[in-house]
């Protein structure tokens, strides 16, 4: 008996548990909503989770893992978590939940069949997926900043000239927020001082 066959046998229950575990990283009353509301448009986040974890597990079970496919699958969930109230660790930690589930689900079989080597091999795959998840997360975060930048460029009227070059309004206020007072950057800056946009 090898571990992979065991995992394949228990595929559905493990995938379900994984979905459940990912859902449970949300506030408890949201978890319940994720589960009950089955319409994919009325419950987009719950839908992304439930359609992702199963195929992701299947992909891990293949002899050779395709990093492209793993990345694109995990992106379904990470793209959402990257803009929710998670710390980076919390956003990607969903991958490690699988280890816990497998160890728990197959504890007896692993102990009795002495499948520790297999387990280590499979867990390495999970670690690999975690690294990919980290890449995906970073790519998503980079994209958040890029769309912000794009917005500044598109919305030039909100760039303010202050004599030393273009300065964006949000940046200026951020400066003031940091120092807890007016920085003087905006002193002498009248909204009519700028000649419209050009």
């Amino acid at each position, binding site marked *: 008996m090898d571990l992979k066959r065991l995992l394949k046998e228990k595929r559905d229950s493990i995938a379900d548990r994984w979905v459940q575990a990912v859902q449970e990283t949300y506030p408890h*009353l949201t978890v319940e909503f994720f589960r009950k509301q*089955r319409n994919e448009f009325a419950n987009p986040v719950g839908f992304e989770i439930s359609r992702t974890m199963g195929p992701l597990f299947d992909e891990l079970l293949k002899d050779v893992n395709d990093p492209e496919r793993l990345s694109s699958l995990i992106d379904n969930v990470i793209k959402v978590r990257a803009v929710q109230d998670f710390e980076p660790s919390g956003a990607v930690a969903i991958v490690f939940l699988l280890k816990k589930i497998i160890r728990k689900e197959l504890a007896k079989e692993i102990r009795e069949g002495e499948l520790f080597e297999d387990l280590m091999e499979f867990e390495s795959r999970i670690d690999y997926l975690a690294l990919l998840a980290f890449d995906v997360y970073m790519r998503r975060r980079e994209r958040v900043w890029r769309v912000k930048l794009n917005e500044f460029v598109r919305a030039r009227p909100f760039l303010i000239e202050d004599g030393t070059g273009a300065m964006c309004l949000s940046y200026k206020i951020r400066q003031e927020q940091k120092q807890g007072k007016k920085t003087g950057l905006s002193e002498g800056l009248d909204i009519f001082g700028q000649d419209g946009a050009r």
Partner: protein
Amino acid sequence: MDVKVSLGIALGAVLAIILIAFFGAQVPGLQPIFGIFLPYAAFVIFIGGFIYRVVQWGRSPVPFRIPTTCGQQKTLPWIKQNKLECPSSTLGVIGRMFFEVFFFRSLFKHTKAEMADGNIIYSPSKWIWAGALLFHYSFLIIVIRHLRLFMVPIPGFVKGLDTLDGILQVGVPGLYLTDVLLLVALAYLFIRRLAVPKMRYISLPADYFPLVLIFCIGATGILMRYFIRVDIVSVKQLTVGLASLHPVMPKGIGVIFFIHVALVSSLFIYFPFSKLMHAGGVFLSPGRNLANTNREKMHVNPWNYPVDIHSYEDYENDFREKMKAAGIPVERE
């Protein structure tokens, strides 16, 4: 509010009412207080409070006409207007309110069966519509049925309703369908508040209390009818006396009756000061009861006042030279 505390408060309050009535009605001489004074007081408070609240709302102005438009507006003649969801006439508004009040149309809106993964899925919210409808109609029928206790002779429609409600002809005296449905609906509404995490999270004691209270009203009513019988002739003597403003206090009415009356009276007293006033408020909700005719007919704001609008003259003064240079006409050169 923590759910245990909320529940405790709601259950405790109802229990207190029951206990007060239980002991109070057994004290010699106090029966008229529970049988006559309390119902009268409750009735006056209910009517007075209800009117007061509605008048309060009615007197507050409606500065803007802001209905939620859930269908196509009245526009070009060849585009079909949705007269119910986006009414442009009083009749349309009446229609919209009718479906809202009698069929809880908005609540029904998101309850259609959906296809998902090839299976028909009913979203859980379907049940809230059914539960709410069941509860409200059962309650209404039970209230109407009770008219036979207050009227001599009993009007035909009350009798008819009575027959219809007992159509199952189970047991003696006949089982009322609405009695069962009321309790089932209430149990559902109650369990939903407890079992669904988001509902538990937003629920206040004020949400549990009326459910428990009405449940106990229903339960004592059923007890009285089927299990701990009370002398119906005496009861009718009392109720007709109350209705004809010549109250008498017959002897020998069981204590369960006084508990029932005390609970009902509590509901009446509580009603005007609580969320139960949605019964009146729904008619006054500007999100629903106005026609979408802002562009056709001017709506008047009673407290409208002039404001300082940056005038064209000031604007031209600010930019005259620039406007001239750009070839934009100006008033004063």
